[in-house]
């Protein structure tokens, strides 16, 4: 390890953090604009042309706000909780490759912080740590609503984490490696979303629950919990919690793009490596629009149904998906490479069967009520 390498890491880490913070700022604007358009409004348009200075105005406002600490709160944990929430949300992106490598200042710069051979395992473990911040924020506030929000959030996040992990496993099986660069490389000809469409759907649904986005935003349910775990937070501490939430959205979309949508790969990326981050950004914008669209479209679902969906639908389905993936790949390797298409076919069959079972159950409940 040389001194130059250390400086390079620090600069790369700093640049990535700045990109994520800028991404957070403009994601809030993007969300407000997109929601406004969906609801036939204009959205923020006062601060700067098309409202592009709105995030900066919000940040300055929050810096100059008074910060309240409730009288009976656990002061240390109360102040620490936003940082504990923010750090995993940013650190999770360390293994996501934004491109292969480019030449800059006479050095070969890799477009990722770390290239570890257990990348997916790292993502899973850091994602689990993210629960702590939310629970600590809820518990240390000494507020009923905050604590209920924290509790709900922890139960919801751990329930959907299993489906998320199993969706990761289906991608690992297709690539045959846990290294993020290998997974991207394995999608050179075919994106995994085509080989494992149901696994991708499970991933996308579980991430909505994992980052507490609508329709799974039970921890924050404004109407019943006022704001959930961050009800007592104000000023910059609230901004950090908010930032963590949106950076989690960005991070998890980047992971989804890497695992199922070909990562930084696209046309001509081999000859022009700097195209990698651009393709990644395009995929991020599309995936994030999906999350915003879901928020604008679906009402929040009830907590018992949320947990039932996680445990009774997502878990068995994702187990079946993992098994189908393993069997399909073994068939393709040992009998005929074309048999790899049994994976999407059987997965879709399992998905359709699950939807039919849910439909049947709902009809039965309807009938029992009538």
């Amino acid at each position, binding site marked *: 390890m040389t001194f130059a390498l250390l400086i390079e890491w620090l600069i790369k880490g700093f640049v990535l953090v700045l990109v994520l913070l800028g991404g957070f700022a403009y994601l809030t604007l993007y969300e407000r604009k997109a929601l406004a358009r969906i609801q036939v409004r204009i959205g923020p348009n006062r601060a700067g042309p098309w409202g592009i200075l709105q995030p900066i105005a919000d940040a300055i406002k929050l810096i100059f706000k008074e910060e309240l600490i409730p009288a009976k709160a656990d002061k240390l944990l109360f102040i620490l909780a936003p940082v504990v929430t923010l750090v995993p949300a940013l650190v999770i992106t360390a293994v996501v490759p934004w491109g292969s490598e480019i030449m800059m200042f006479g050095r070969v710069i890799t477009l990722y912080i770390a290239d570890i051979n257990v990348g997916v395992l790292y993502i899973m473990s850091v994602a689990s740590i993210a629960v702590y911040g939310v629970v600590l924020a809820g518990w240390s506030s000494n507020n009923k609503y905050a604590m209920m929000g924290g509790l709900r959030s922890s139960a919801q996040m751990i329930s959907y984490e299993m489906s998320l992990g199993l969706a990761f496993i289906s991608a690992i099986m297709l690539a045959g490696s846990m290294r993020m660069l290998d997974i991207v490389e394995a999608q050179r000809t075919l994106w995994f979303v085509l080989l494992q469409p149901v696994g991708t759907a499970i991933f996308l649904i579980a991430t909505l629950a994992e980052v507490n986005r609508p329709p799974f935003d039970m921890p924050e349910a404004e109407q019943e919990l006022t704001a959930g775990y961050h009800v007592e937070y104000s000023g910059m*501490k609230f901004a950090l919690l908010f930032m963590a939430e949106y950076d989690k959205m960005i991070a998890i979309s980047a992971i989804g793009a890497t695992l199922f949508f070909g990562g930084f790969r696209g046309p001509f990326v081999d000859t022009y490596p700097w195209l990698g981050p651009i393709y990644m950004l395009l995929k991020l914008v599309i995936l994030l629009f999906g999350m915003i669209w879901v928020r604008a479209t679906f009402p929040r679902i009830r907590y018992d149904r949320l947990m039932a969906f996680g445990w009774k639908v997502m878990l068995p389905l994702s187990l079946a998906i993992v*098994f189908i993936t393993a069997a399909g790949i073994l068939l393709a390797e040992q009998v005929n490479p074309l048999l790899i298409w049994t994976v999407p076919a059987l997965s879709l069959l399992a998905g359709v069967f699950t939807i039919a079972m849910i439909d049947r159950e709902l009809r039965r409940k309807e009938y029992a009520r009538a």
Partner: protein
Amino acid sequence: MLLEYTAIAAFIIVTAAIGFIAIGLGMLFGPKKSTDKKAMPYESGMNPIGPGTRRMPVHFYLIAVLFILFDIEVVFLLPYAIAFRQLGLFGLIEMLIFIVILLVGYFYAWKKGALEWE
């Protein structure tokens, strides 16, 4: 390999520094005029009744225990996901048996009503 983890450690330090700087900025520039009313727990303007942290429903513990059970399953599946090409049919059948054993427990918990919320 250790180098890569050092890079992650450097990244963690950078992110934590950003977090503390942001909190410091807020503490530096924000007004500090706390009153008793402001320091009360916020319950939409009502006076709070009872303590803020109370006993939590036992169901959350149950979910946590079930989570440990199935998360271990995911953890056991991870090495299999890497090695299943070498293990072949034998590995597939063995994994099937493993999943079935866990599914027995899963359906037991389901029928016992551990997954229902009242």
